[in-house]
């Protein structure tokens, strides 16, 4: 089975939830402290939600300089699945692993509420198990979740099929209703909504399952190809 590393920055707070969710889906997930510089043991990585380094300065601005981030960039470069949820998405944009930036919500208040997401592309490690046009109810929980980028970046995102999830009813002013994007290769994904909070009907929605199941499958694929490389 693949191993997923869940990166914990001081101030992260969704790390236990992500581990619990991936474990509930049969995955093997472990916490990784941000001071770690060797991530070779992990087939996939998650940067969870929270307030890394207190979100002081800007969300993700200090976390991108954490020791672990060089190894995260290397894993992304090597094609391993990397998922940034909420604050993790903010960290990935600050680190330049995903284009654009996340700004304060249009209404200038924090928003914790269910949103309906529309699957726009399945060409990513997060959405590979879903279908284009699927509507998924997944909660958001953020103050700075309004996606912004310049025109050239936006065109490139569209042309590269990199917009993976859009809001059906834009809650925060994100450009193009963007809720989640991928890099050009599709192995690095960031999204503001929290799929780990939509895992059971008991908690309001189970629509996050298809996303995290796809991510675990991608992690398994990465593990399998790593074994092929290791055993010539």
């Amino acid at each position: 089975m693949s191993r997923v590393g869940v990166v914990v920055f001081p101030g992260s707070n969704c790390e236990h939830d992500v581990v619990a969710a991936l474990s509930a889906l049969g995955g093997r997930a472990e916490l990784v402290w941000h001071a770690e510089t060797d991530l070779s043991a992990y087939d996939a990585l998650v940067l969870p939600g929270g307030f890394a380094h207190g979100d002081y300065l800007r969300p993700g601005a200090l976390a991108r300089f954490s020791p672990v981030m060089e190894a995260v960039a290397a894993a992304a470069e090597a094609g391993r699945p990397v998922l940034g949820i909420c604050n993790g998405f903010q960290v990935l944009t600050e680190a330049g692993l995903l284009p654009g930036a996340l700004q304060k919500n249009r209404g200038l208040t924090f928003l914790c509420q269910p949103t309906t997401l529309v699957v726009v592309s399945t060409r990513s490690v997060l959405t590979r198990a879903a279908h284009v046009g699927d509507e998924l109810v997944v909660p958001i929980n953020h103050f700075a979740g309004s996606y912004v980028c310049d025109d050239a970046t936006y065109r490139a995102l569209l042309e590269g099929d990199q917009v993976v999830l859009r809001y059906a009813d834009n809650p925060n002013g994100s450009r193009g209703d963007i809720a989640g994007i991928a890099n050009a290769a599709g192995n690095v994904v960031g999204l503001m909504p929290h799929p780990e909070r939509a895992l059971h009907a008991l908690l309001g929605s189970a629509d996050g399952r298809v996303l995290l199941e796809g991510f675990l499958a991608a992690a398994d694929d990465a593990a399998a190809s790593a074994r092929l490389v290791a055993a010539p």
Partner: protein
Amino acid sequence: MEYAVRVEVTLRRGIADPEGATIERALPALGFSGVHSVRTGKAFSLVVEADSAEDAREVAGALATRLLSNPVIEDAAVTVVGVA
């Protein structure tokens, strides 16, 4: 020498500034007429050890680009205020 440096970080032109817009909308009710183009930003004051004001500006400029601002959406302006 130690130089007092001020860094101002503002949103780049064309990037939405909901905070600035909200402030601007509130102005008429407060009796301020004829005020517009409100933009928000952040200011940092630093003390930089350097051999010259120019060196201090350079160090602060690099810091401003790399950490204090997000160049995707923000501009940074560096001013050497004087000797600290």
